[in-house]
């Protein structure tokens, strides 16, 4: 049988609002397959987002969902997880939402190592508002606010997550659709703060300005630049020039925040 996505989608919500070819739909399908693989109970799963095209995703999901303020998914999600540590909490959002206005919340969620999974849909642009540059826009790329090319260097979001203390960090692309669910499933099963960055495409506000004739060219580009971590081990720095590593980039075990907090509560009670 074809995979039954409908089971996880709120009735009557399709077609979604995303533009033709927008990678966000491909990532949403990956998330649904991951939820299915892990066997999460949708009634006990919270999907939390900020604002942006990417952040519209939870609205389609037949789970417990929370669409919050721009950049604040991590703050709201932390509240949910602290109040109900038994819930599975998944955050979804864009590069702008998560690394510009929400950058602060992002790094501190990583630092705390709270047991949640954060999926960042990185299309390198503020799609929803018409294509302003984001902290993930490559140097030289055109955005509505950088008509002569972006002078800023871009964040490497996965490296930022590792540096800030996330204990599971993976990267995929919307071209490599059959890998997305596997990365997200592993992230969900990891105990600690997990970040999955998916490089995806915004043909409408990024592609056109940056000389991609179609979404097909954008996907072919993702195919060309992606190198699985294992394959990269055998490649020289010259061969890796301009490439992006994909797969599980980092994984470690470290005390998890809600468990540590529960211990703190016990200590406080005992001290009374």
């Amino acid at each position, binding site marked *: *049988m*074809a*995979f039954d*996505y409908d089971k996880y*989608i709120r009735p009557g919500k*399709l*077609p*979604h609002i*995303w*533009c*033709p*070819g*927008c*990678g*966000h*739909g*491909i990532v949403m*399908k990956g998330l649904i397959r991951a939820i299915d693989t892990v066997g999460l109970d949708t009634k006990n799963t919270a999907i939390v987002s900020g604002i942006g095209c990417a952040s519209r995703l939870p609205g389609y999901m037949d789970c417990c969902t929370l669409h919050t303020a721009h950049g604040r998914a991590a703050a709201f999600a932390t509240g949910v997880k602290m109040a109900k540590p038994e819930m599975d909490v998944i955050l979804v959002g864009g590069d702008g939402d998560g690394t510009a206005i929400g950058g602060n919340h992002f790094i501190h969620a990583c630092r705390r190592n709270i047991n949640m999974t954060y999926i960042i849909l990185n299309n390198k642009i503020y799609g929803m508002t018409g294509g302003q540059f984001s902290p993930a826009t490559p140097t030289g790329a055109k955005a509505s606010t950088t008509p002569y090319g972006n002078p800023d260097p871009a964040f490497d979001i996965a490296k930022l997550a590792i540096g800030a203390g996330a204990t599971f960090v993976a990267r995929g692309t*919307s*071209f490599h*659709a*059959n890998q997305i669910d596997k990365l997200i499933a592993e992230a969900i099963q990891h105990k600690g703060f997990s970040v999955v960055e998916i490089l995806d495409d915004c043909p409408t506000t990024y592609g056109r300005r940056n000389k991609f004739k*179609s*979404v*097909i060219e954008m*996907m072919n580009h993702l195919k060309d630049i992606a190198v699985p971590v294992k394959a990269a081990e055998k490649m020289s720095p010259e061969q890796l020039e301009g490439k992006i590593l994909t797969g599980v980039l980092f994984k470690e075990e470290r005390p998890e925040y809600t468990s540590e907090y529960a211990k703190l509560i016990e200590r406080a009670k005992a001290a009374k």
Partner: protein
Amino acid sequence: MEKKLPTIEIIEKYCKGCHICVEFCPTKVLEMQGFVAAVKNLDACIKCMQCELRCPDFAIKVTP
């Protein structure tokens, strides 16, 4: 023995005509008919599921 052909369903009201399924099908089973995707050569389908996986719009279902 005759090989079992898959069923490919295209939900036209969801399809946004992005061409992704058509371009990346390894055996050129699909084509665009106007604004929506359509099956051109079912015989050639190798049931790799790539079209279903990559369709951003939940518009194509392959039952092998």
